[in-house]
């Protein structure tokens, strides 16, 4: 049987706005992926530890407090330090457009802003999945 794609949905930082993260987690599960949802208030360290322990293919970060410029790149750095930089990181939340470019440069491969349909997230995962599977 083909191994299901595994996705960690995580909330770094201190904000408790988990409506979006939980929606994404559940919608991806419904779409047939294996989803691990961490709950709120995770440190970048704990998110990376979960990613490695659960052997995930993707990490999706959700943050609405404005701390994304500090915390998203930190997750990418830590994954790299653990030799797990094949794991693809994406993010979402209240993120101003002007921050997207610098986040992308720092290795967050996609930023999904408010109003994004779930199909866009699934398309992203499918397109990256092919490249990782090869």
């Amino acid at each position: 049987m083909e191994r299901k794609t595994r996705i960690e949905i995580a909330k770094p930082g201190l904000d408790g706005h988990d409506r979006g993260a939980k929606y994404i987690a559940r919608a991806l599960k419904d779409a047939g992926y294996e989803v691990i949802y961490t709950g709120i208030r995770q440190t970048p360290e704990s998110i990376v530890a979960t990613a490695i322990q659960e052997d995930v293919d993707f990490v999706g970060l959700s943050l609405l407090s404005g701390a994304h410029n500090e915390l998203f790149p930190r997750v990418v750095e830590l994954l790299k330090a653990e030799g797990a930089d094949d794991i693809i990181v994406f993010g979402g939340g209240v993120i101003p457009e002007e921050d997207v470019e610098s986040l992308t440069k720092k290795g967050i491969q996609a930023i999904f802003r408010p109003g994004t349909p779930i199909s866009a997230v699934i398309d992203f995962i499918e397109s990256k999945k092919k490249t990782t599977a090869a």
Partner: protein
Amino acid sequence: MQESIKNRKMEWEESVLNKVLQKFPERRETFTTGSDKPVERLYLPEEETKGDYLEKIGFPGEYPYTRGVQPTMYRGRLWTMRQYAGFGTAEESNERYKYLLDQGQTGLSIAFDLPTQIGYDSDDPVSMGEVGKVGVAIDSLKDMEILFSGIPLDKVSTSMTINAPAAVLLAMYIAVAEKQGVTRDKIRGTIQNDILKEYIARGTYIFPPAPSMRLINNIFEFCSKEVPKWNTISISGYHIREAGSTAVQEIAFTIADGIEYVRNAIKTGLDVDQFAGRLSFFFNAHNDLFEEVAKYRAARRIWARIMKEKFSARKEKSMMMRFHTQTAGSTLTAQQPDNNVIRVTIQTLAAVLGGTQSLHTNSKDEALALPTEDSVRVALRTQQIVAHESGAANTVDPLAGSYFIEQMTDEIEKEALEYIEKIEKMGGMVRAIEAGYVQKEIQDSAYRYQKAVEKGERIVVGVNKFTVEEAEPKGLLKVDPALREVQIKKIKEIKESRDGSSVESSLTALKKGAADESVNLMPLILDAVHAYATLGEITHVLREEFGEYRESIVL
């Protein structure tokens, strides 16, 4: 008009209305429409159709308060216009508060940053990236002194969105007031202090339920004696709705939280009428205008009946549901943000037609960033236009008697009571939260809603219909990331200049007090605050003694 209603109206005028009019005359001698037709204070049915008007709807300022908690409502005094604000340092927020007061705002509402809300100092490693972001950073009494500098605390009422460490921030506020020469019996305001909805929806909990409930009881008791004008809790449905609940779930879960607080306080020996008059509520205002109005009216009726019948309250104040409202952040779109002004206007009307006591209107740019000064002004102007130009404030409960509104009010009441009963059967709200029941109900509603948007069954203008290609607006508010360094420096200075031995002795006393359930912790926290112990130090002591709550994840 039918005799029974006419007679009751005369009784109401004598026993309720006249007393209030003597003390608080209405804003004008006569009220008229835009084209000079007279507007009466209160409109009543010509006749009883089903024979239950008096029992179910009745008169404003009178049990069961369906038509509002005051007999003259906004003809007497407009609602308090209270914009939730705060960011960056205490200095920056102090400037924003003074600006808002200058612009005609009538009360303050303090937003704290997340480390403050969860009891961490700015120099704590977990505070990285969060300092000053969603509110102002408060580490010690020093920051609080700066925050209210030049603002006379006997003149303004202040609402503070603070929950798990509410006792500490309240102690700091009392200390600042006293430094200004304002005694604690004179200060007016509200602390949110509603931990149950933090477990359900908002997420800034620290301690497990039992010690959290104790802290709340300590505050109830302390304030009933020392700070009588303070609203000791704001039982909040706002965040439950933001998390995706329905209108029915919003009021059902909020009232079920309220029941838990009242029951707990009574269990520790407080008399219901000693504290219940200081309970206040906080609701959301969504786009569906009529459903929202019916929701507020149903909530008032349910609460009044529960307080009277279940908890045997005797004082009228204990049965009155007074509430603050905020327009719905989750309805704001990042796309075509100007459209949000219109959404907020509808929501403002809902809150006003529903009889709110105070209101925060969101700014149009909040789906993108913290609001700028300009967009906050438009949000405040929205309230002022509804207040002074729309006529909605000139008669009491204008939608009463509409077949639609009254039936909707009854239906929401019935469905909310079914939820409340179910939660009571589970053993109360703490049990229902631990079982994940409430969280699951909300998530299911949120999921259904989002699916409907995705499928286009629900239209969100500018998002899934009537879309345009657009560039993001310029000039969004940015919080300086170097701010954490500023706060860290302030903490260092405080720790060097304060008297270390009094910090230590006050924290030791607090630790001892925390271990003994019969001790009221408020005076001990006040001592620590006066000694300039930091919020993080005080909370740390309590964390050691009480432990920390872990979320039960429900998907």
